[in-house]
């Protein structure tokens, strides 16, 4: 008898613990997740979550694990959250996907042709094709929102990713080298210059080391593309979801 009653109590407690409080979950999301995923889950530095299917989290259990443990190296785990909060948050994240995803105005087929004709492949790799100077774009549609992609195409310097630095390094003898910082420690810095050549310098031996704030080798396409062309290109990039 006692055992049955006890079992009943435990069952009630368990139900109470898994009951999601959407308002509380939303507060947690806005306070801790929105920094990267956007206030409404539309993405930003992190991927958009307002999609019916999350490629790395097919079900609620998987969402809970990712929330708790994170996705190294970019996403920290929220181990400090209570299991009830994690469950509520997972339900909230899933509810974001039931909102109709953004309908993009452009045509992805035309966007794909523009991608080639405007020379994007001269710096970026998609599905194994292109040059590796800039970041790979094979799954950029999962990692960046359409709004972010649009802004980056028009004015890339306004939207630089965390940790990105464009550097001008002047050795004691020889001319200055401009390149993307690929690594740095307290004593040395490694750059990738246009054309893909790597340079390595000891910082103490440089005549000048300038961090070019708000600069990037990627050209701004504002005024270079028509609004319709930008729509097409965004539509194409947003459709890139998987690495080969």
């Amino acid at each position, binding site marked *: 008898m006692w055992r049955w009653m006890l079992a009943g109590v435990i069952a009630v407690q368990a139900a109470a613990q898994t009951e999601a409080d959407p308002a509380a979950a939303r*507060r947690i999301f806005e*306070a*801790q997740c929105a*920094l990267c995923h956007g206030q409404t889950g539309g993405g930003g530095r992190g991927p958009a979550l307002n999609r019916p299917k999350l490629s790395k989290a097919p079900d609620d259990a998987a969402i809970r694990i990712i929330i708790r443990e994170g996705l190294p190296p970019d996403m*920290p785990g*929220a*181990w*400090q*959250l*209570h299991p009830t*909060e994690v469950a509520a948050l997972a339900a909230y994240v899933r509810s974001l996907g039931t909102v109709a995803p953004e309908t993009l105005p452009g045509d992805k087929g035309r966007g794909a042709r523009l991608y080639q004709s405007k020379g994007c492949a001269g710096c970026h790799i998609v599905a194994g094709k292109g040059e590796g100077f800039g970041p790979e774009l094979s799954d950029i549609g999962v990692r960046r929102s359409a709004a972010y992609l649009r802004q980056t195409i028009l004015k890339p310097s306004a939207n630089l990713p*965390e940790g990105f630095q464009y550097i001008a390094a002047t050795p004691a003898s020889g001319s200055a080298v401009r390149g993307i910082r690929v690594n*740095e*420690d*307290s*004593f*040395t810095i490694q750059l990738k210059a246009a054309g893909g050549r790597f340079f390595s310098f000891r910082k*103490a031996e440089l005549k000048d080391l300038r961090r070019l704030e708000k600069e990037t080798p990627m050209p701004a396409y504002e005024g270079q593309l028509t609004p319709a062309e930008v729509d097409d290109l965004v539509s194409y990039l947003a459709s890139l979801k998987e690495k080969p």
Partner: protein
Amino acid sequence: MKWFAALVCASAFAQVPYERIVNAAREPGNWLTYSGSYLGQRYSPLTELTPANVSSLRVKWAFQMDTRLQVSPIVVDGVMYVTGPNSAAALDLRTGRPLWRWSRPLPKDYQSIGFGRVNRGPAILDNQIFVATLDCYLVALDAQSGVERWSAKVEDYKVGYSMTLAPLAIRGKVLVGVSGGEAGIRGFVDAYDARTGSRAWRFYTIPGPGEPGHNTWSEASWKTGGGSTWVTGSYDPDTNTVYWGVGNPGPDWNPDSRPGDNLYTCSLLALDGDTGKLKWHFQFTPHDSHDWDSAHVPVLFEANVRGTRRKLVAVANRNAFYYALDRTTGEFVAGRPYARQTWAKGLDDSGRPIVIPGTEPSEQGTLVWPNLNGATVWFSPAYSPQTEWIYVATREIASIYFKRRAEYQPATFFAGGGEASVPGNQPSGAIRALEASTGQLRWEFPLHSAPWAGVLATGGDLVFSGSDEGNFFALDARTGKPLWDFQTGGRIAANPISFAIDGSQCIAIAAGSVLYVFGR
């Protein structure tokens, strides 16, 4: 032939009585206790390496383990003793070749709540090596064979107790402290009889009913009050006093259930070595809500303070303030911030922080410097009696602190919140030289990111430390000028040591899962 003779000597005289550790400075070719001496200075009196010749350092040998290493080794008479989590090895000091290995299986249901699966080093006394294990046993190994002589259960790992620290061996006793400050433990410092493994004394860092300080907790909050003791203490043999730092109160970021100062969390304790009786305490962060454990190696030294020679103990605290205290009485002597902080206006005349309102964690998040790992953490500072400066690996990093519900359940996180990084805030760091008696900055060497490596000072006026990007480097102790650096290829989260191989000065540091030994 010479090698053979040395080996024979090593086995005959490998015993390390207490008196040898007390007088460790007389045999600088060895490294006999966690901090090099009981005083917690991480200072090697060896003078062979100097600013003029340190650039000729090269790797002599390396030893790999299948785990990331945070070990500060022990070196005795031609043998180096190292540890990993639940494992230990004795290495030939000339070659790094293992002489014996020991390991203890980790129970399948073991979990680390709030920290990494690491071990920070062994201790030695007489003919035994002492290792603290993750599943919370203190184990005594025969120094010659690695054979287990005894093991003592310190506490139950199943409810969150664990150990990562190097034990501290004093006269006849081995001292340990516990991790578990995020699991609602009640912390303590323990002493065990070095011969038998029976417990000699225990000092609870959270006072129970009827004990002084109990009234700084409300209701039952003391039972889950935290107060871990996870970093090796220091020892004054003249007064038989153990100095030991105490960790954060629990739950970490939600202090609502524990109004009051929450003694002795975030404090330094002075304990009698024979009995564990409290001589005095000093609390750095009363009623902490930012996880600022005072888990540091206390540095013991003497200095002139306003014309009087005084025995002091110094702590560069996780809360970003530097403190010098009278080590006989615990009286506050001097203190000031040594890293950026935004939570206190300063310290009052007694050393208590003048807290700025609104800096506690909140539901929507509160931006505070430093972050939860603090302006420095467990890794050791160094003190040079030549410069009378303390060298601190310093972290410059902010975070957004969140407060959440906390509900105690055994063997789960009892944290009540957490932190998020501040967008656009690029963490940095520095090695800072501080005048030991005042904390005044004398120089700094900037680091690319917030460090996790300790500092070593040497008699040749050098300072060694490491970076999170794998740089191991030497600085001029008087100017901070960089003199030598080596890319180890692994993140450095360990303390350097110095010793001699065949009379020639060497430096050791763990990086990633490799232990490197450098010499000329």
